[in-house]
Every structure is written in C-alpha cells, then in structure tokens.
C-alpha cells in the first residue's frame, strides 16, 4: 500500500515536471526582478526621502493590489447575487483575503518607513488611520463568514457586505486621506507630475508585477477551493 502510494506520488511529480507554466506566470519573474533591480540601481532617490525611497517600490504596489483585490471581491459578489453560483462567492472571499493580506503588508512596510522618517512606527496619520479602519472592515467580513454555517446564506450575506465594504474602499484609501484631510504626514501620491519619470516607470513595473502575483494567488486559491468542493461532493 505504502509502496503504491509512493509510486503514485513519484509518477504524479514526474508528470507535473512536464507541465509548463502559463506565459503570464513566467512573466512575473523578469517583471519583479527587473523592478527590484531598476528601483535600486537605475531610478534616482526622491530628494526628501533618501534611502527610504526603496520602500516605495513595495509599499505602493501592495496598497494598489489591496485596493484592487477589494474591488474584485465586490465584482464577484455582484456576480454571485446575480447568478447564485458558489464559485463566485469563493472568488469574492479569496480576493478579500488577498486584499487584507496586501493591505496588511502595505501597512507594515509603511510603518517601517514611518519609523525611519517620522520616528515612530505608528502616528495615527490620516492614511494610517483610514487603512486601519479598512482592515477592521474586512476583518468583520471574515467574522461574518465564519459565523454563518449555511453556505448559501453565508454567500448571500457576505456578498451584500462585500458590496457595502467596497463602497468604503475609495473613500478610505484615496478620498479622505488625500482630499478631505489636507494636513498629513504621509507624502503626496507619487503620480504627481514632479516625480521623476524613471521612478514612475519603476513604480508602474512594480505595480504590474504585484498585480500578476495577485492574479496568480487568486487563481490558486480558487482552484484549491474548487478541488475541495469537488472532493466533498464525491464523499
């Protein structure tokens, strides 16, 4: 029995070795390594930031992917409400998970930057406060999901919540910290015209690399979930 299982595992591994990755997944390698190398060696440092400029090439794409993931979560929530397919609910939840992960990573990289520039990891700056509120909002989304055992009811409630939460995303990530609270420690968005063209190009490359990473992770999560559902239905 043990021998047959191990032989099966070896055969599966050998078969898997022959499987090639999609081109867009392979694209991640040159995109990410190129962005890292260009960020450190090619693009100039921002005058007032110095060495802390490098944090920007990770912090900004993480925040971008976080926001994108929340909006994608809302998109699949709408699809679920329209078609009532649990696969859409799975994708909505998976995207919200990744959104929370990338928002958390953006917060951590921002806190490291803040320690270096502002002297403390946490300063209750409007951007820090609003991102904290956003994480609380999506933390509540997962609490809601874990509190409802029935899959259909959970999916419906989660979809409605994901839609409401997504409405808050542009306000908390962009409008309030940038346009409502004008006095803040956080530097201005780097898409301003005065930012060096090279820095802009590296940021675009890094944003693209992190977006590919997010899509890959989302796809993996959805595929795993569909395998789990298939196995449950067989059992």
């Amino acid at each position, binding site marked *: 029995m043990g021998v047959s299982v191990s032989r099966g595992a070896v055969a599966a591994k050998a078969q898997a070795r022959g499987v090639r990755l999609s081109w867009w997944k392979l694209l991640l390698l040159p995109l990410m390594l190129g962005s890292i190398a260009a960020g450190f060696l090619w693009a100039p440092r921002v005058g007032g930031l*110095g060495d802390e400029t490098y944090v920007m090439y990770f912090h900004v794409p993480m925040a971008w992917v976080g926001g994108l993931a929340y909006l994608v979560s809302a998109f699949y929530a709408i699809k679920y409400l329209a078609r009532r397919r649990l696969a859409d609910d799975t994708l909505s939840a998976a995207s919200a998970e990744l959104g929370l992960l990338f928002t958390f990573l953006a917060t951590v990289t921002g806190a490291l930057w803040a320690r270096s520039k502002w002297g403390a990891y946490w300063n209750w700056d409007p951007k820090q406060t609003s991102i904290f509120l956003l994480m609380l909002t999506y933390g509540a989304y997962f609490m809601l999901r874990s509190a409802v055992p029935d899959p259909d009811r959970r999916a419906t409630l989660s979809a409605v919540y994901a839609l409401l939460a997504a409405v808050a995303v542009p306000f908390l990530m962009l409008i309030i910290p940038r346009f409502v609270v004008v006095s803040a420690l956080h530097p201005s968005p780097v898409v301003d015209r005065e930012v060096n063209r090279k820095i802009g190009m590296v940021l675009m490359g890094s944003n693209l690399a992190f977006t590919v990473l997010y899509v890959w992770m989302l796809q993996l999560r959805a595929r795993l979930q569909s395998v789990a559902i298939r196995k449950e239905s067989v059992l």
Partner: protein
Amino acid sequence: MLPLSQALWVAAPPMMPTSDTPIHGSVLTMVVAGIIFLGLFLYLVRLDRQVRDLEKQ
C-alpha cells in the same frame, strides 16, 4: 577577505544620479529582496504543480 557589504560594493558600483551616500547597504537590501522574491516564486510554482496534480486526480 572582504566583508559581504564591501564585496557587493565592488560587484555593483553606485549608479544613482542623485546619490551622494554609500550604496553598499542598498545593494545588500536589493539582493535580499531578490532572494526573498525568488523563494516566493519557486514556492508558487511548486504550489501550482501540486494543485494541478490534485485537479487531475
């Protein structure tokens, strides 16, 4: 023997137009970031293959 930071300084001389501070610490950070990302990439490739195996079963 050169310390790692100095060795990296030799391997990758400063190229930043606005830099007037030593770069070797930054190069070390870049190498570490690259290694972390490579590890993540290889992990994702492995995970992708495992999921594909599960889908075939």
